[in-house]
């Protein structure tokens, strides 16, 4: 039991003693900006309450039937299974690519992050066409083995597989960033006390990574709760589907609103779980002087299994969907030169970059409150700020349709509105890495600054901000990538005639013209790769100890 007293009780106690008080009261400006962000984030919730209130009692009867409860359980079960799977993939990948002598680890680090650029509906489509009952795999097996039909992978397994494969990078990226921030002295202490490398990992490294794992897992769980594309392609009925069927099948929006509120409640449950998993632990470096680089572990005879594992994940999560898109792209090229959607690409980059920038700005007060001033007010702000992320895109989009047309009509169907919707939809992706980075800065740096007579503001600008910038960058990249793929809110809120790559993919795919959809899909992936590559390379380079 080395890690517990080192990592938690005594150190946390020491920090509290040094500060000589409980959590500080946040400055007024911070509280106000936190409130402003929370106010924006509750737009969908207010709308849902208005809609739910307006209905007759029949809607409630509809909701309280057994099927609704059943769907809620399925959603929760899927979210739990996907999160567990994503952690099982993301943590080993992060550790192998940052802390071991895995051959080709730079390439694997980039490949492990890349599936994030593939929209889950495209990924699910690729899995189905490759592994479905009469997919490409069956075709390969038919000749030699006479397999006429593979078992159906749709349903729970297919939905789980698709969501896990295209969301595990959230865990991978946050954990890789967490490993980068580890203080090697803990591990050194463990080794000095005679622990095996595996023992050190299990007893020291893993507990220290808990906040990062929880942060990534939270993103995965909430993503799974609001996903519609993958579950509908895999025909696994969950809560979002019940909401969509309500919108599609009846014009009464009350049942859909009530269902959405229940989904938001489910998300709060996930947040509470994450909170307890994150624990009260605080992990700062106590060290004086500069951090020394982390050592690399020699894999020895585990080298081959490790390479196989990394290759298998990259094969299914990356090569497979890219091949399917490539197949349609070639068909399109063979049929004649398809139009390259350059203007849509520009539009996508513009609106996603704006969304990422504003989201980081909005996430800053939320993350600062959560990391620096824990307390009831901060918790409420944070919970509210995360609610939009659990709601299906169409719910958030319709909330903005309703709010803007009735209150601020000049904002309706404008680009700033699309950007605002992205912020509400994806804020946690900016806030989580930011908070993790802020937690690692440690209050003592600030205290040192204050002790040297600097104002709180100066300390923040000169000391905290540069250290938090890494988290901000990672958050901005995540939001940018997700915004590039976003469809329902973009379709409903964009200015008429405004096209992004995602809407182009949708246009092609709904018309059944996969070759037309393949060009924007390939472009979308190619563009998303750039910010992702930068983030992944940064993770890899810094973990490698190659600091300037």
């Amino acid at each position, binding site marked *: 039991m080395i890690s517990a007293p080192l990592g938690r009780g005594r150190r946390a106690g020491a920090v509290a003693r040094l500060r000589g008080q409980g959590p500080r009261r946040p400055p007024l400006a911070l509280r106000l900006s936190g409130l402003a962000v929370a106010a924006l984030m509750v737009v969908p919730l207010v709308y849902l309450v208005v809609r739910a209130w307006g209905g007759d009692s029949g809607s409630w009867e509809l909701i309280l039937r057994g*099927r609704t409860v059943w769907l809620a359980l399925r959603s929760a079960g899927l979210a739990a299974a996907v999160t567990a799977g994503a952690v099982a993939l993301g943590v080993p990948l992060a550790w192998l690519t940052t802390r071991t002598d895995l051959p080709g680890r730079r390439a694997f680090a980039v490949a492990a992050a890349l599936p994030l650029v593939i929209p889950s509906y495209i990924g699910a*489509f690729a899995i189905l066409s490759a592994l479905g*009952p*009469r997919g490409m795999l069956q075709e390969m097996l038919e000749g030699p083995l006479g397999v006429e*039909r593979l078992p*159906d992978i*749709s349903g729970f397994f297919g939905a789980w597989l698709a969501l896990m494969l295209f969301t595990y990078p959230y865990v991978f990226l946050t954990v890789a960033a967490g490993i980068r921030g580890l203080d090697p002295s803990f591990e050194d202490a463990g080794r000095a006390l005679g622990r095996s490398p595996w023992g050190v990992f299990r007893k020291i490294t893993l507990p220290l990574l808990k906040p990062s794992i929880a942060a990534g897992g939270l993103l995965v769980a909430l993503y799974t709760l609001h996903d519609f594309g993958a579950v*509908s*392609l895999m*025909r696994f*009925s969950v809560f979002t*589907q*019940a909401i969509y*069927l309500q*919108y*599609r*099948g*009846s*014009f009464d*929006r009350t049942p859909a609103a009530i269902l959405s509120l229940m989904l938001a409640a489910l998300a709060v449950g996930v947040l509470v779980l994450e909170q307890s998993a994150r624990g009260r632990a605080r992990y700062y470096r106590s060290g004086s002087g500069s951090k020394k680089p982390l050592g690399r572990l020699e894999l020895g005879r585990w080298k081959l299994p490790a390479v196989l594992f990394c290759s298998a994940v990259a094969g299914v999560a990356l090569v497979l969907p890219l091949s399917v898109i490539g197949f349609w792209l070639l068909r399109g090229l063979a*049929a004649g030169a398809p139009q390259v959607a350059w203007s849509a690409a*520009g*539009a996508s980059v*513009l*609106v996603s*970059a*704006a969304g990422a*920038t*504003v989201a980081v*700005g909005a996430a800053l007060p939320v993350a600062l409150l959560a990391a620096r001033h824990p307390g009831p007010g901060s918790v409420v702000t944070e919970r509210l700020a995360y609610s939009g992320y659990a709601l299906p895109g*169409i719910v958030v989009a*319709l909330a903005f*349709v*309703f709010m803007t*047309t*009735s209150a601020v*009509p000049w904002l*309706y*169907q*404008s*680009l*700033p509105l699309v*950007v605002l919707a992205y912020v509400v939809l994806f804020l946690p992706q900016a806030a989580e890495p930011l908070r993790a980075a802020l937690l690692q800065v440690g209050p003592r740096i600030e205290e040192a600054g204050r002790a040297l007579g600097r104002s709180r503001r100066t300390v923040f600008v000169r000391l905290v901000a540069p250290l938090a910038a890494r988290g901000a960058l990672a958050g901005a990249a995540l939001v940018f990538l997700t915004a590039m793929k976003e469809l*329902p809110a973009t*379709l*409903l809120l964009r*200015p*008429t*005639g*405004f096209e992004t790559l995602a*809407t182009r993919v949708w*246009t092609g*795919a*709904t*018309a*059944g*013209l996969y070759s*037309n959809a393949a060009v924007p899909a390939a472009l979308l992936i190619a563009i998303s790769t750039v910010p992702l590559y930068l983030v992944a390379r940064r993770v890899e380079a810094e973990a490698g100890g190659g600091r300037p």
Partner: protein
Amino acid sequence: MAGALVLLTLAAAACDDGTSAGASGGAEETLTIYSGREEEYVEGLFEDFEKSEGIDLEVRYGDSAELAATLAEEGEASPADVFFSQDAGSLGAVAGAGLFAEIDEEVLGSIDERFRSPENLWVGTSARARVAAYNTEALAAEDMPDSVLDFAEPEWEGRIGFPPTNASFQAFVAALILLEGEDTATEFLEGLVANEPLLYEDNEATLRAVADGEVEVGLVNHYYLYEVAAEEGDIPVANHFFDGGDPGALVNVAGVGILATTDGPDAARRFVEYVTGEPGQTYFPEATHEYPVAEGFNAPEDLPPLDDIEAPEVDLSDLAGTLEPALELMAEVGLL
């Protein structure tokens, strides 16, 4: 944050460029269309309209059902003038919410009464029939059953495919409930599911599967055969039309309605006249292989005349109200 503001300003400027460029040709009128029909299939018609009528169209493409929900949220503040829907269900929903203005009887005079709302709130622009598309290498015309309900029999196990998430398939289930009652519909869907059908994303994927011999029969709309054949050349697929008012031969429409809140009622009326009149009624048979809905226009080449299809007697305005039980039923048997 400063960076964000700069970006937003740029974005707003870019957006202004994009949307106002079309209107720069002078003091022309502009009409906003919410289109649930895919760009691919209506773009040509819209361009012809702009040229011949001198009215600019701003078209917002989306999913029919989602656009209908959007119209309901927008209410009085809707910028839309016309809603062009993929199916009668969404038109019926918008009409039911009281968002459509009545269309002049004169405009509608030539349209078959089957294909418009009894209150003149919406009108069909083209008709499509449900068919069983079959692979001609695996099956002959006489192998096809008399009724679509026969596909629930065990002999069809592993031989059928269809797209359950597609609005046209869902409308077919709604019609089945209207015609035969919920019990028969349940029994049919359960039998169908027991036959382990292959389920596809959309009509086109289903038809390609029939062409490739992955399944022998696909339940689709009639015109996908021609869409795929146009891309692939000769394919071994034929359409089977059911007889005797069978639910499997449902004839549905795509159509338009004018929003009550339109600020250009004359332009909107001209648009409806255009798509239900000669230009539209000759465009759809040629461009999309759909049937014209106005009298005096010919069916697409190679297709039996619409009057020869013994379609079931379903009031299309009733489909909207039955869609919800239909979707619930499909969810219960595991198709959604």
